């Protein structure tokens, strides 16, 4: 079972893809050679798109021979990892990993969707990827509408099963010891893993010398980032910040992404505490998948400014607990909604 060359170009993180460049004796020091300039340039643009614009615009250039396409894609992938490693800012690493994993996720989805029922090999190869990279055994149930199935216990190895409500076991189709997932769901399930894999690859990048080219580009990206995102200042120190909200701030500070319920919690809480739209945007723009238009829309929706929707209230502690977002401490004693902590402070 082997990939066609073209397929490998979409999955440059695979061992098999890497072998395409190693067999041609590619060395990192060579990147200072002008023949690689266009690849370094492409990697740089990809990072800028991801990190500063928050867009997924990267395109594979298919107008070449198959062999060259794969080689180039693998090298671009390696260059990006080197650049990110050299920038070495946690939030940048995470944002890059998120976008890069989203890119691969898209390829996977389209490969799964494009393969029709009798195109079993593609599917077999795809879940071979999953098995090799993530140690999860996935079976295809051709007889049951091409569902994939994973043993319950293996399914629960994936953090997403605990992070997001619709991915909790109770909201999955479970039968005879297996969790059933359709094509796009199975790829979603692996998003976290793909993301972690990329972060891991970045960590493992340890070249003896970095080419000058890489250093100078990463330095300029780094200073641009630092100008854009000065360190997060401690929010409203005069209030007691509910621990669940504090936890979200910490996550943002570390460059982590937020689940949908966490965004709703933060959004409603900020609205409740009368933060201006600009103050809120300033916080949300630190999220790796930030998109100004969507964020504005969502915040206005939560505030009840859009259409005829009513204002959303800050969810109750019970609901927050249900979403695993509660980090209860002594200050929470006897309250049922995080906003009560604000009353408590101001009523003194």
């Amino acid at each position, binding site marked *: 079972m082997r990939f066609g060359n073209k397929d490998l170009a979409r999955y440059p993180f695979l061992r098999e893809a890497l072998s395409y460049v190693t067999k041609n004796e590619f060395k990192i020091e060579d990147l200072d050679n002008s023949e690689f300039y266009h690849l370094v340039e492409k990697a740089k643009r990809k990072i800028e798109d991801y990190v500063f614009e928050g867009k997924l615009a990267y395109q594979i250039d298919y107008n070449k021979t198959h062999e060259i396409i794969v080689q180039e894609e693998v090298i671009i992938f390696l260059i990006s990892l080197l650049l990110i490693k050299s920038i070495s800012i946690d939030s940048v690493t995470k944002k890059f990993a998120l976008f890069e994993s989203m890119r691969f996720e898209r390829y996977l989805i389209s490969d799964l969707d494009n393969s029709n029922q009798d195109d079993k090999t593609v599917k077999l190869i795809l879940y071979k990827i999953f098995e090799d990279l993530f140690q999860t055994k996935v079976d295809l149930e051709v007889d*049951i*509408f091409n*569902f994939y199935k994973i*043993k*319950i*216990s293996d399914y*629960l190895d994936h953090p997403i*099963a*605990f992070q997001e*409500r*619709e991915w*909790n*076991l*109770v*909201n*999955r*189709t*479970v*039968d*005879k*010891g*297996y969790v*059933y997932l*359709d094509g796009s769901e199975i790829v979603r399930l692996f998003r976290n893993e793909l993301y972690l894999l990329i972060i891991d690859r970045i960590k493992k990048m340890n070249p003896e010398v970095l080419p000058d080219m890489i250093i100078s580009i990463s330095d300029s990206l780094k200073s641009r980032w630092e100008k854009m995102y000065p360190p997060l200042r401690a929010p409203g120190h005069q209030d007691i910040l509910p621990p669940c909200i504090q936890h979200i701030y910490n996550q943002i500070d570390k460059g982590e992404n937020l689940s949908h319920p966490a965004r709703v919690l933060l959004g409603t809480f900020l609205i409740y505490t009368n933060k201006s739209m600009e103050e809120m945007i300033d916080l949300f723009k630190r999220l790796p998948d930030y998109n100004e238009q969507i964020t504005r829309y969502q915040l206005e929706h939560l505030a009840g400014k859009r259409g005829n929707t009513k204002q959303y209230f800050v969810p109750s502690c019970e609901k927050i607990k*249900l979403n695993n977002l509660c980090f209860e401490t002594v200050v929470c004693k006897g309250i049922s909604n995080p906003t009560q902590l604000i009353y408590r402070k101001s009523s003194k």
Partner: protein
Amino acid sequence: MTSPTTSSHTSSSSDKLKDSITDSFNYPHSVEDDPNKIWLEKVFRKHYFNSSSEIELDNYVSEHEFGFRLFDGYIRRHLNFKNKRELIASIIKFSPSDIFCSPARYQHPSASMDQKGWIGADLIFDIDGKDLQLDCARIHNMTFCKNCKLIEKEVHTSCSKCNSSMVQIVELPCQNCIRNLKKEVTKLVEVLHDDFGIENNSINIFFSGNNGFHIHVVDESFFNLSSMKRSSLTQYLLGRGYLVDNLGFRIDKSDNITMLPNKIYYNKGWRARLLSRLHLQLKNHRIDDKFMRKITQIKETNKIGISGVINNQIQNISVKIDPNVTIDIHRIFRLAGTINSKSGLVKSRVNNLTTFDPFKESCIREDALVKLDAFVDTKLFFNGTSYKIKTGINNIPEFVAVYIISKGIGDIYIEKLK
């Protein structure tokens, strides 16, 4: 009344305990002045002497942690026995009021918690009558006041004599309670089998000995599950956080229905159970117009609205287990085949759930007649016989007396010799 066991009074057995003191056995013996406890300890010992073969153990006795609650009320944990024989010898010697065994197996069962070396644990479930909140229970249970010792019929939140709120509920499950508990067991077994894929012969059902059932699953693929994964299973069984979106439509706060993209909804698990309860049918795992019409009809013909109807059915389907018991992989759990001191009944294996009658199959066999001083009038059924207990002295078999004394609604009657 013949007693084939050891000495019938406790001072000598207390001496014996001192002979064999292990670190964890330090029996201060506060029971000497309590005739009920002295008597129960004696009857329990007699029972274990005669019926030790009923105690159920797996092949890894030496890898389990055991716990004994003695009649002084204290539990000794972290006990460990080489084999069944050693365990039973110890049980007969100490005649504990309750005997516990860890569903977990450890490398060093007697070490402190963080040194034990957890190997794995059977998956256990506890279904307790208290959690069902049945109407009958409020009527046939009684209330015991810890302050003035008054026992009243029915459940009250405070004592009607002294007004103290230090009251304790005396659970006296009836056949209706048992029937409803069995329903929960049936639901649990169905999900374990159909959804989790557990073979029926790996599912062991026990009467808890008091007012509930314990289910032990002995299955390799669940033995190693972490606490967190077990909590997912309990959430599944309880239906906590279930999203209606799984049915292919969404209901907003004003009970409006919107369809979700029509994809294939594999009709299994919760979805299948819920749809069948709602009499909704998917056609070839897809939603069709008929399905839609039916939902609208449900919505329009029910005062509680579509979300009300669905939430009620979620409640009906969910299995009323106590999640904490399943999630805690380090706890000790009542050992099968031993007496529950809350009732004097045995935690016994249920072979046929439909016909199972705890008041027949879980009684201890000791049946010599004894005198009992009852605090209230009550009627009890044991072994197919009805016992009318009158306030005051009654002549009844030991297994009935054990029940009444364990429930705290009567004393053993000892003729004053002085």
